[in-house]
């Protein structure tokens, strides 16, 4: 139980100042993040760092070099699992893969890849569908530490049972155990995947499009943004996608409240798969 709470007028002012300080000093832009979630994450960080107020946290973030990377973990790291929402991957196999087969080479963008669970899930799916050899996956995140973990492809062995169960329900054609080596309580995923994956620092808040892709997967990232920033991100996806390219979102994310709602067709309602519409 924690008594730390960010509430009241003064705390709102401190929150805005802290976010601005982070932007000015470190160029990480949280100014358009959804306020309620960021407050919760900062509350957790304040507990961990023993700060009584956001002003104290701001002081340390500005003056202690080790503090910002530590805080960034609280602000950005997203715990996911491999093949989270197995039916999403099943829908990709059924609705998207048949069209992907028609391309001689394929590019994918996993935006907000965090520690890489989603990236390896996609790579394994592409391998099973015989598409990995002609595929390149861009895996991006704003958290450099998360990207390192994603690149390492090492996960606690306790998580593998859940990953395996999800994989089986995703329309698997192989066994997950073919793709990792277990040692010292860890599972290390096959390094051969990495020649098909480019891990890169990229911000949906401040950076622009870097490649044309056939498929963008961005799940449970947009819920942390306000509507303006959601529109910026979806605009980047729209721009990056080729003609009739595909967009996959999280199970409870939609384009309903987006300025881009009319520019995509919903191809799998429950599994949140969309296809870029041809210009009218």
């Amino acid at each position: 139980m924690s008594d730390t709470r960010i509430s009241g007028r003064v705390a709102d002012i401190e929150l805005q100042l802290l976010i601005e300080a982070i932007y000015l000093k470190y160029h990480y832009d949280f100014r358009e993040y959804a306020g309620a979630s960021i407050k919760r994450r900062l509350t957790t960080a304040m507990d961990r760092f023993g700060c009584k107020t956001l002003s104290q946290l701001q002081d340390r973030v500005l003056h202690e070099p080790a503090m910002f990377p530590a805080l960034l973990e609280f602000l950005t790291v997203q715990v996911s699992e491999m093949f989270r929402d197995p039916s999403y991957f099943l829908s990709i196999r059924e609705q998207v893969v048949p069209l992907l087969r028609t391309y001689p080479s394929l590019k994918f963008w996993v935006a907000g890849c965090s520690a890489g669970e989603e990236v390896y899930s996609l790579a394994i799916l592409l391998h099973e569908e015989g598409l990995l050899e002609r595929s390149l996956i861009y895996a991006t995140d704003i958290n450099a530490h998360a990207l390192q973990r994603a690149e390492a492809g090492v996960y606690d062995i306790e998580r593998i049972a859940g990953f395996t169960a999800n994989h089986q329900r995703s329309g698997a054609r192989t066994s997950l155990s073919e793709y990792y080596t277990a040692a010292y309580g860890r599972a290390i995923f096959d390094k051969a995947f990495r020649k098909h994956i480019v891990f890169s620092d990229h911000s949906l808040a401040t950076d622009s499009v870097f490649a044309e892709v056939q498929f963008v997967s961005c799940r449970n990232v947009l819920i942390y943004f306000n509507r303006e920033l959601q529109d910026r991100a979806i605009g980047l996806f729209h721009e990056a996608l080729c003609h009739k390219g595909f967009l996959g979102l999280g199970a409870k994310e939609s384009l309903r409240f987006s300025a881009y709602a009319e520019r995509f067709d919903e191809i799998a309602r429950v599994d949140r798969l969309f296809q870029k519409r041809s210009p009218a």
Partner: protein
Amino acid sequence: MIRLGKRPASARPPQPDAIVIGASAGGVEAISVLLTALPARFDIPVFVVQHLPRERPSLLADIFTPRCARPVCEAADKEPVARGTVYFAPPDYHLLVDRSDDGPLLSLSSDEPVCFARPSIDVLFEAAADVYAEGLLGIVLSGANEDGSDGLAAVLAAGGRGWVQRPAEASSSLMPASALARCPQAEVLGLADMAARLAGMPAGSSRKV
């Protein structure tokens, strides 16, 4: 830009501007008593967290829609809060309330479970307390864990009101008993009394937040 709240120094409004309800084991029946009591003219938004298995889609909105006079739906991310609508947190996501220039919005989060629960009652109550302050009513119903206690404390600390289901009446008493231990100033009520009070809340009382 992160929205700053407008916090008028005014006293607590006669009727709440928003209601949050939290329940776990035995909660669906208790929620049913309250939601079916809401009359067609009821115009206060209601946000509900009922702990559910994370694997399956929730049927709560489908179950309650035909039995309620007011619209019932599963909360969607960044959906504007509509008066008199009942929003259920989706399974495996926290439900929060955010401010925007156009009024309160629903917001979802996939952050770690709180009290082993996602959605967590504490997460909803704390976020709603921040937005609605003294205009919020928090209701803790039947359940077999301690989720909701910190949340109700946040509602009361922000000047809002709290109702707790009489533990002896709840099919699982731990959750209401924990909430009362944490928040002794909350009102202890039976479901029938809560339902009657909600049904009697006059229309047109909601202030703009």
